[in-house]
Structure formats: C-alpha cells, structure tokens
C-alpha cells in the first residue's frame, strides 16, 4: 500500500513548539544558539547579573551530558532547569516542553533557553521561542555565517563575542557584519565581550525593549 503524506519532516516538532509558545504566555523566550565555546553561558551569566534586579529570569540549559553550565547559572540565584539530550546535538520542542513542567513561569519576564553548542541542527528545530539569538565568537573565525547561514537567517540578534580578542586575530569585523546582513538584512548585530563586559549595554537595551514588546503584545492580544 502506498500512503501519500506530503508532510513536513518536522511537523510533530512544530506542533509541540506551538504548544510551548502558548505556555510561554507573556514571558519572552530567547533561544541562544552558537558553536561550542562561543560564550553562550558566559554571556548569560553577565546578562543575569545585570538584569536580575529588573526582571524575573529563568533558564533552560541544554547540554549533551553534563550539568556544568547549569551549575554555573544556578550560582547566580535564578531558576534553572537542566535538559540532558543524552547524545542529541540540539534541543527539540518536546525536551523544552518537559523542562517547562519543572519551571514556574509565573513571575518570570525572560526565559533563556541555552541550546546545545552546534551551529547546524538547532536552526531547524523550533522550540516555540520568541526569537533566536546567535552568538559568534571572534576566535571561531569570521567565515561561520557564510558556512552556516541558516542560524543567521533565523536569528533576530547576533552577538559577536570575545571582541577583546579582535586585535590578535584576522577577524574582519566590518566584512563579517556585511556578510551577516546579506544573509539577514533585518538582524541586529552587537559586538560584545563577556569577559570585559564591553558592548553588553546595547544587548541589555535590546532585551528590555523585547520584554516590553512581548508584554504589551500579550496584554492586548
């Protein structure tokens, strides 16, 4: 027997992502995506320290096997739920749905979802988030957006991290910015250093306005 499906491969994931989106309600859900070692956790630590007096913040930490990142985040006194993907290279919507069972969304304004370090697979899997934020570090080299365009096409913001290393590398910041904008003309690019704190104020300002937009949209919608 032949069964015609004409169905998207990731339909089941998209269904769960829609349910997650409903559950987030007025909470801004941010899916952080990057290569391993680009500095997602370091940026989160800085961001939490700077904004936790202002906003209720929760974190879902995706990791293949360890709880190292979750322990770092928990040290900052915010709610954190660890999701071990046990080998899978990305978070999918159902993993986030299970994590949401463990987290109290009331009282939260921002939920950060730190994806598994990988520039390829996380781009395909909608978690129900409001936006993807890509982290690209100077140390990785500036060719990553062109080599892995899907992440940059999907992301609302790119944080070019480890800017303190710019003087020591061949990273051509203006050229990389041009290439990112060619892939996604709407994207916002902030050059930051999680180590020194340089440039992070602009990222915090973006988050503040994104929280305000989300809350006014869910109040009226």
């Amino acid at each position, binding site marked *: *027997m*032949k*069964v*015609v*499906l*004409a*169905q*998207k*491969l*990731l*339909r*089941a*994931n998209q269904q769960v992502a829609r349910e997650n989106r409903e559950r987030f309600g007025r909470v801004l859900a941010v899916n952080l995506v990057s290569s391993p070692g680009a500095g997602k956790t370091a940026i989160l630590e800085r961001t939490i320290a700077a904004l936790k007096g202002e906003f209720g913040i929760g974190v879902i930490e995706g990791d293949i096997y360890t709880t190292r990142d979750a322990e770092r985040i928990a040290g900052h006194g915010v709610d954190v739920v660890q999701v071990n993907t046990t080998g*899978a*290279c*990305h978070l*999918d919507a159902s993993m986030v749905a299970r994590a949401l069972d463990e987290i109290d969304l009331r009282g939260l304004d921002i939920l950060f979802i730190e994806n598994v370090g*990988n520039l*390829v*697979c996380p781009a*395909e*899997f909608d978690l129900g988030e409001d936006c993807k934020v890509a982290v690209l570090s100077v140390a990785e080299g500036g060719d990553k957006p062109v080599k892995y*365009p*899907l992440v940059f096409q999907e992301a609302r913001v790119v944080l070019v991290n480890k800017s303190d290393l710019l003087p020591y590398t061949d990273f051509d910041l203006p050229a990389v910015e041009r290439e990112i904008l*060619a*892939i996604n*003309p709407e994207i916002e690019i902030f050059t930051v250093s999680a180590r020194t704190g340089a440039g992070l104020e602009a990222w915090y300002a973006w988050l503040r306005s994104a929280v305000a937009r989300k809350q006014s949209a869910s109040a009226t919608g």
Partner: protein
Amino acid sequence: MHELGLIQAAMEEIERAARANHIARVVKIRLVVGKFTAALPDALQFAFQALSPGTIFEGATLEIEEVNIRLRCPSCGRETTAEDITYWCPACGARAEVVGGKELYIDYFEGDEEEGLEDEGSAGPEAAAGQPAGGA
C-alpha cells in the same frame, strides 16, 4: 548530525502514519529535500541505514528527490537556479529572494499491511494522518 535528527523525525512521522494505516513493514520512502536545507542525501541515507535495523524500516529503500535552489531577483527580475547556497543573483549580483530549494518533506511511503487484517475503513482520528492512495 543534522541529517540524523531529520531522519529520526521522518521515521517517527512515518511510523505514526504506518500504524494508522495498519502497515507492518515499510518498503519504500520518498523524501523531497531542497538544496537550501543543506541536508546531504548521502548523510541522510547513512543515517537511515544506521537507524532502520530492527524496526519496521529494516530493508526499506529511501529515495531522495533533490530540489535545486531557485532565486528571484527583485532588481533585474530574472529567475535563476543554483546548486549551492547563495543569496546573490548570478545575473546582476543583487540580493535575490530564495523562492525554491527550502523543501523538506515526506512525499509518500509504501508498505505491507498486517496479515489477516479486515478492512476497518478509516475509523479513528489517526487515520487522517495519511491518505491511502491506491491498493497494495
């Protein structure tokens, strides 16, 4: 790695539809994959061969139709095709719009029905997951 996750998702979808249609063994799958998705057919085949033993997919053929990238240029109005991921019109160099090549779907699958099964019609909500087309 990317291909493994995609094949896993495809197998879950097909298994669900197979169960709804009382199919005990899948013999053929046809996927349509646009080149813009950067999902490589060889890697998809490899992932499928690795995952199928011991499942209803064991021994099944995976057929993959690749779809070229199609660009439409808002500046010069030309429509062109490309083999590799690009955002630029090959004719005039302007930023083009990607109008084809992002496809990623299961076209159809074929399978053998469970033996000695009476035709139950399409009762149950899961039957809507797939429309049987033609006899076995």
